[in-house]
C-alpha cells in the first residue's frame, strides 16, 4: 500500500537519532501516516480497545502483586487485605477482575468482526492465526489469574481444569502430578500459577507485536472486503483512525467503569468469597462467563477423553478457518447466505454460553449436544459448502465507490444535496 507521506526528521537531534535508530520513522509510518481504508466502521476500533485493555491489566496487575501473597494459607486473606486495607485496593482489584471480563468482551467482538468481514482470508491467514494464539494465551492467563484469590471457585476451577490432562491415556496421572507439584492442587500449584500468570501477559504483548506487524504488512481488511486501490481509498491513521479509536475507547471505558463502580461482583461468583476447602466441592461449579461455551461443549460429550478433545478442538478449529472457508468474497455484505449462517453461528455460541451455566442434566445436556454438533458443522460442513455453492453479490469496483455510491473521488465536487 502506498503511504500518504514519509517521515522527514525536523530537527538536528531527530536526524541524528533517525540515522542510528529509525524508531520515530517506524512510529510515524505505523501510527501516523499509515493508510487505513476510508470505510472502516466502529467494529474496527476493538483492536485499539484490546491494546488498551492489555496495558490496563498489566498495570493494575503489577500494582496488585505489591500487596498479594501467593501462599495457600495467606492468598485469600491477602486479597481481602487488598480490598479493605490497601489504599484504593478495592478499586485496583475490581479494575483487574472486571478488566479480564472486558478484555474478553472486546476480543469476542473483535473475533466475530473478523469472521463477518472475512478478515482471516488471504493474505491475512497468519494475522488471524496469531490472533488465535493470543486468544489461547488470554484464556490460559485468565484461568491462572482466577486461581490466585484461592477461594472455593479458584480451587475447584483449578482442580477441574488441570484434570483435563488426566484424560490423556497412560501418562495422564504423571502429567497432573507434575502440573500440581503434589498429589492434589495445593500450595506448589498456587505458586507456579502465580509465576505463570505474571509471565503470560508479557508473552501476549510479544505476540501482539507480531499481530500488529503482520497487520501492517498486509494492511487492514475493511467492510467492503476489497483491497484499497490507491490514495482515494485510504485515509491516514492520524487523525482519522486515532480519533475514531479514541472515541470508541472512551465509550468502552464508560461501560467498563459502570461494572467496576456499580456492579463489581456481577460477573463473579459468590462461592469465591469462601476460602478454598479441599474437603468440599461447591454444589454448582461454573467457570467464568467467557469460558462457558467451551464448558458446555465439554459437558455435552458423555466421555471424558472425547469431551476434553472436543473442548480443545472447538478452539483449535479456528486456526483452520482460512482454509475451511475458501470463498473468494471476503465480506458478508456480498455473501447473502453466509451472512445468515454467521448470525446463526453467533446465536449458537451464545446458546452454548447459556447452557454452560446451567446444570448438566436432562434437556440442557441434549440442547448442548445439538448446539455442539452445529458449532462443528458450521466450520466443517456449512462453510466449505457455502464457499462452493453460494451465489455472491457483485463487488464494488473500489472502496471509494462503495462509500460514495457513484465513485466520486475525494476533492471532486459532490452532487448538490437535494431537498425533499
Amino acid at each position: 500500500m502506498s503511504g500518504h507521506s514519509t517521515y522527514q526528521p525536523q530537527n538536528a537531534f531527530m536526524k541524528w537519532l533517525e540515522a542510528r535508530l529509525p524508531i520515530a520513522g517506524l512510529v510515524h509510518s505505523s501510527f501516523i501516516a499509515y493508510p487505513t481504508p476510508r470505510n472502516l466502521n466502529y467494529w474496527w476500533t476493538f483492536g485499539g480497545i484490546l491494546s488498551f485493555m492489555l496495558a490496563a491489566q498489566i498495570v493494575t496487575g503489577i500494582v496488585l502483586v505489591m500487596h498479594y501473597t501467593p501462599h495457600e494459607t495467606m492468598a485469600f486473606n491477602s486479597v481481602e487485605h487488598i480490598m479493605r486495607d490497601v489504599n484504593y485496593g478495592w478499586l485496583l482489584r475490581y479494575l483487574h477482575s472486571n478488566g479480564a471480563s472486558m478484555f474478553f468482551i472486546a476480543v469476542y467482538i473483535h473475533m466475530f468482526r473478523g469472521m463477518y468481514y472475512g478478515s482471516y482470508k488471504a493474505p491475512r491467514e497468519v494475522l488471524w492465526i496469531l490472533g488465535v494464539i493470543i486468544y489461547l494465551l488470554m484464556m490460559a492467563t485468565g484461568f491462572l489469574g482466577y486461581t490466585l484469590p484461592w477461594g472455593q471457585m479458584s480451587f475447584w476451577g483449578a482442580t477441574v481444569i488441570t484434570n483435563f490432562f488426566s484424560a490423556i491415556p497412560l501418562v495422564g496421572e504423571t502429567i497432573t502430578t507434575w502440573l500440581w507439584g503434589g498429589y492434589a492442587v495445593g500450595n506448589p500449584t498456587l505458586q507456579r500459577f502465580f509465576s505463570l500468570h505474571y509471565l503470560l501477559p508479557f508473552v501476549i504483548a510479544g505476540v501482539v507485536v507480531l499481530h500488529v506487524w503482520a497487520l501492517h504488512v498486509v494492511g487492514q481488511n475493511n467492510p467492503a472486503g476489497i483491497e484499497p486501490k490507491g490514495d482515494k481509498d485510504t485515509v491516514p491513521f492520524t487523525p482519522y483512525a486515532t480519533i475514531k479509536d479514541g472515541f470508541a475507547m472512551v465509550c468502552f471505558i464508560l461501560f467498563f467503569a459502570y461494572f467496576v463502580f456499580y456492579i463489581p461482583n456481577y460477573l463473579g461468583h459468590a462461592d469465591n468469597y469462601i476460602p478454598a476447602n479441599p474437603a468440599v466441592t461447591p454444589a454448582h461449579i461454573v467457570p467464568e462467563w467467557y469460558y462457558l461455551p467451551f464448558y458446555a461443549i465439554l459437558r455435552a460429550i458423555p466421555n471424558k477423553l472425547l469431551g476434553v478433545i472436543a473442548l480443545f478442538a472447538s478452539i483449535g478449529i479456528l486456526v483452520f478457518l482460512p482454509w475451511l472457508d475458501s470463498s473468494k468474497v471476503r465480506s458478508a455484505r456480498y455473501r447473502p447466505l453466509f451472512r445468515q449462517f454467521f448470525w446463526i453461528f453467533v446465536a449458537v455460541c451464545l446458546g452454548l454460553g447459556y447452557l454452560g451455566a446451567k446444570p448438566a442434566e436432562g434437556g440442557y445436556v441434549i440442547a448442548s449436544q445439538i448446539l455442539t454438533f452445529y458449532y462443528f458443522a458450521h466450520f466443517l460442513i456449512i462453510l466449505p459448502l457455502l464457499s462452493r455453492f453460494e451465489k455472491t453479490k457483485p463487488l464494488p469496483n473500489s472502496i471509494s465507490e462503495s462509500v460514495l455510491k457513484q465513485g466520486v473521488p475525494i476533492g471532486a465536487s459532490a452532487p448538490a444535496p437535494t431537498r425533499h
Partner: protein
Amino acid sequence: MASTAASAAHTRRDFLYVATGSVAAVGAAFTAWPLIYQMNPDASTIAAGAPVEVDLTPVAEGQVIKVFWRGKPIFVNHRTPKEIKEAEDVNLASLPDPQPDSARVKKGHANFQVLIGICTHLGCIPIAHSGPYNGYFCPCHGSVYDTSGRIRSGPAPSNLALPPYEFISDTRIRIG
C-alpha cells in the same frame, strides 16, 4: 568460498557440523531437564504423603468419614448389610467398569469400604449417600456411583479409585 562440485557431496566438514549440532542439542536437553523436573512433588510434599493410620472404632454403621492422605480426601464408609448386599448383587455385565464388590474391599472386612473420594471425571469430591444408587453422586458433572463406588452413569470413565491400605487390627487401618 571455494565452492566446487566436490562441496555438493558429504564431506568430513559436514559430519563435524552435524556432530557439533547434535552435542549442543543433547546438552540443551540435559540443561532443560532440571527446569522441567523441578515441577514434580518436592521432598517435603513427598514426606507429607507418608502413610496415615485411621481408628475405625468411632465410625458408626451407615456413617462415612473423610480423612486426608496426600491431600486427597479418603472416604471410609462403614456400610450397612443392606448396602453390602446391594453392592454384591449387581449384574457385573451391566457395569461400565466391571469389578465385583469383593475386589473393592479387604477380605473379611466387607463392612468397611475405603475409597479415594475424587471423581474420576475431573476431580470433584462426590457426595456420599446420594444419587439413584444411594452411593456417591458428583455434583460437578453428574457422575453416579453405587455403594461400592463403581461408576454407574455420567461422564466419569472408571470406578472411584482405591488407595493402598491395610488392616493393622480389626479396628485400625493404615492408608498409604
